């Protein structure tokens, strides 16, 4: 099975992008425009769908500079501290928000039509507590196809069904990665002058109503690969203590419900009470985190089941809802049909989804790899964008930070960096041998059992309610699980890919539990709710919790939010000149 390093396929390129979703594609575009060679590694097989939700897009957050004060970067930026409960990198969020109009126009120039088909105008809605109608509601079925086409036209090399398992780093500078194709079994060493991590959020990390591990709100094939690899490579992560849950029709963890809420649906409890105003004066227009928190509280108070109520809405609004339902999740109408529920006339029972590590229901505060204003992490020439980075904002956040990172890559490469190092052949051989050993663990631990332990542990002790005792218990379990990593069993190449995913999920869970233990306060409701520190403590905790690799696992330190996260980076010349 094993072979020498000469059995690796070798690719030398300018830029390696890990993940072909919105952030990865948008990072590739400016690099291609600058004439750089780009390789994209993607676990899926197409560039035509969004990485996070696998389908199209039904809303896009942007500033358009259309005239009114609210539609300017300055106005939105002013509200970012309250939107993020004070935990935000204002430098990076500021860059993202200022770039929004430019990137929006650029996406339009790629062929995406954001206008309403009937009126020919932009249909803009206020949602998730934002201080203006920043969300364009549109039929974005082909949104990602246009981005993918641009990447293909730029002649990027796309390696499909390919999983990156380790980054190549020397002297705190990234220079490529090792990957394998889980259809062919072929291993590749990709050397690159810069690497962009854009592999999305962390899913399959806790339990949900259906009990099916792959029934998740966001795509279950996003497993924190970027965060885990970045951690091992020496990058820093922040906000890993903040988890995100959403609300879903009970039994199917799908997106689409939030779109209904932004179009005017209500939540009611078992007594028929519309309760959301108890939790926020904006009611159902509150931030996603607040909406989820409200429902979690109602369930814990014994007021469940909770229902979604659309019955008061006018027919034209219900028609619009019905039409947009399937843009985000193609199968949702079929689900309602099989269930025999008509949301126009009946209440729909709602569940709290499984958790994910993404942006904790808050725009402009991501949980993941810390980046500077160019999208570069604490490791030189290693960039991150989208849901795996610390400034995240849905599709538009991924698009804008992705493009910023792509431009950052161009600057970094033009600033020079010498010849690409030659990776140590023994190290390459070891990476491959350790991986392929999972294929021979006939008596080993099935990755599904390993993952199930992670999920149960997170649900019980690192979920929507936490305390010191539970978090320590969880860390003990997660660390004990890590000792079994070498014994994980893969039945085939596909299973080998899942083994790597399962390990990455566990690694992220350990980072989450470690950061949660460090933050001795509660912030953003159920995103980080410490039963032993139930109050928000602005005096002591207007701070980021930064996670990085220590000699014996993840360690934390804090940094005042008066500073950008890049202030904690040890690489010299924190950012290349813009």
């Amino acid at each position: 099975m094993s072979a020498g390093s000469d059995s690796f396929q070798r690719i030398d390129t300018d830029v390696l992008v890990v993940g072909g979703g919105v952030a990865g594609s948008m990072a590739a575009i400016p690099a291609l425009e600058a004439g750089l060679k780009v390789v994209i590694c993607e676990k899926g097989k197409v560039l035509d769908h969004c990485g996070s939700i696998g389908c199209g897009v039904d809303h896009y957050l942007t500033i358009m500079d259309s005239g009114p004060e609210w539609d300017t970067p300055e106005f939105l930026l002013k509200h970012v501290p309250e939107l993020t409960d004070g935990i935000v990198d204002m430098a990076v969020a500021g860059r993202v928000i200022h770039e929004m109009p430019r990137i929006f126009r650029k996406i339009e120039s790629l062929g995406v039509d954001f206008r309403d088909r009937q009126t020919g105008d932009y249909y803009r809605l206020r949602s998730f507590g934002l201080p203006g109608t920043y969300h364009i509601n549109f039929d974005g079925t082909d949104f990602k196809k246009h981005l993918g086409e641009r990447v293909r036209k730029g002649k990027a090399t796309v390696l499909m069904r390919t999983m990156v398992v380790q980054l190549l780093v020397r002297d705190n500078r990234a220079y490529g990665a090792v990957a394998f194709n889980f259809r062919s079994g072929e291993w590749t060493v990709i050397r690159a002058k810069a690497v962009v991590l854009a592999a999305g959020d962390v899913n399959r990390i806790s339990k949900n109503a259906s009990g099916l591990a792959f029934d998740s709100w966001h795509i279950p094939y996003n497993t924190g690969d970027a965060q885990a690899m970045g951690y091992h490579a020496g990058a820093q992560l922040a906000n890993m203590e903040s988890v995100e849950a959403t609300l879903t029709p009970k039994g199917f963890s799908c997106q689409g419900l939030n779109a209904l809420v932004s179009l005017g649906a209500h939540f009611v409890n078992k007594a028929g009470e519309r309760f959301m105003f108890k939790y926020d004066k904006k009611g159902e227009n509150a931030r996603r985190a607040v909406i989820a928190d409200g429902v979690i509280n109602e369930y814990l108070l014994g007021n469940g089941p909770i229902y979604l109520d659309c019955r008061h809405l006018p027919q034209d609004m219900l028609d619009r809802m019905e039409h947009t339902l399937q843009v985000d999740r193609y199968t949702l109408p079929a689900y309602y049909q099989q269930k025999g529920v008509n949301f126009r006339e009946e209440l729909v029972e709602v569940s709290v989804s499984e958790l994910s590590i993404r942006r904790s229901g808050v725009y402009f505060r991501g949980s993941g790899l810390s980046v500077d204003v160019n999208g570069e992490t604490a490791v030189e020439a290693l960039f991150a964008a989208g849901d795996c980075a610390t400034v995240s904002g849905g599709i538009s956040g991924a698009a804008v930070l992705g493009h910023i990172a792509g431009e950052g890559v161009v600057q970094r490469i033009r600033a020079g960096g010498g010849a690409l190092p030659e990776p140590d052949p023994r190290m390459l051989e070891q990476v491959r041998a350790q991986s392929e050993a999972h294929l021979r663990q006939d008596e080993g631990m099935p990755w599904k059992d390993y993952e199930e332990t992670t999920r149960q542990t997170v649900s019980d002790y690192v979920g929507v309610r936490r305390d010191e005792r539970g978090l320590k218990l969880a860390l003990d379990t997660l660390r004990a699980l890590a000792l079994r990593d070498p014994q994980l069993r893969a039945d085939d190449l596909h299973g080998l890919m899942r083994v790597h995913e399962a390990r990455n999920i566990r690694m992220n869970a350990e980072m989450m539990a470690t950061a949660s233990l460090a933050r001795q306060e509660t912030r953003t409701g159920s995103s980080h709710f410490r039963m032993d520190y139930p109050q928000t403590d602005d005096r002591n905790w207007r701070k980021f919790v930064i996670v990085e690799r220590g000699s014996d696992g993840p360690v934390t330190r804090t940094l005042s939010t008066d500073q950008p996260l890049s202030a904690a980076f040890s690489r010299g010349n924190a950012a290349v000149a813009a």
Partner: protein
Amino acid sequence: MGTNSRNVFNPIRINPETCVKCNLCDWICPGDLIYKEEDNRETLPVIKYPDECWYCGLCQSICPTQAITVVFPEQMVHNKTDVVSLLGKVAG
């Protein structure tokens, strides 16, 4: 531990009469679950890892002859889980 022993539910039905064995479902599946022998117009696609399905329906949406139907299992359609049990052991 785990749910491996349970009979695995097949998330999609492929109509063998209308399937044209074209490979598109294999190509589009984001989870690498559907395997279709390439360049063989005789064999049907196989759902090799049914319990890893995300129920996204991309296979159904791309199928040129509507030969694929996504079918949801009972625990998704008529779910009996107590939501409070998902909210952790610390809450109580």
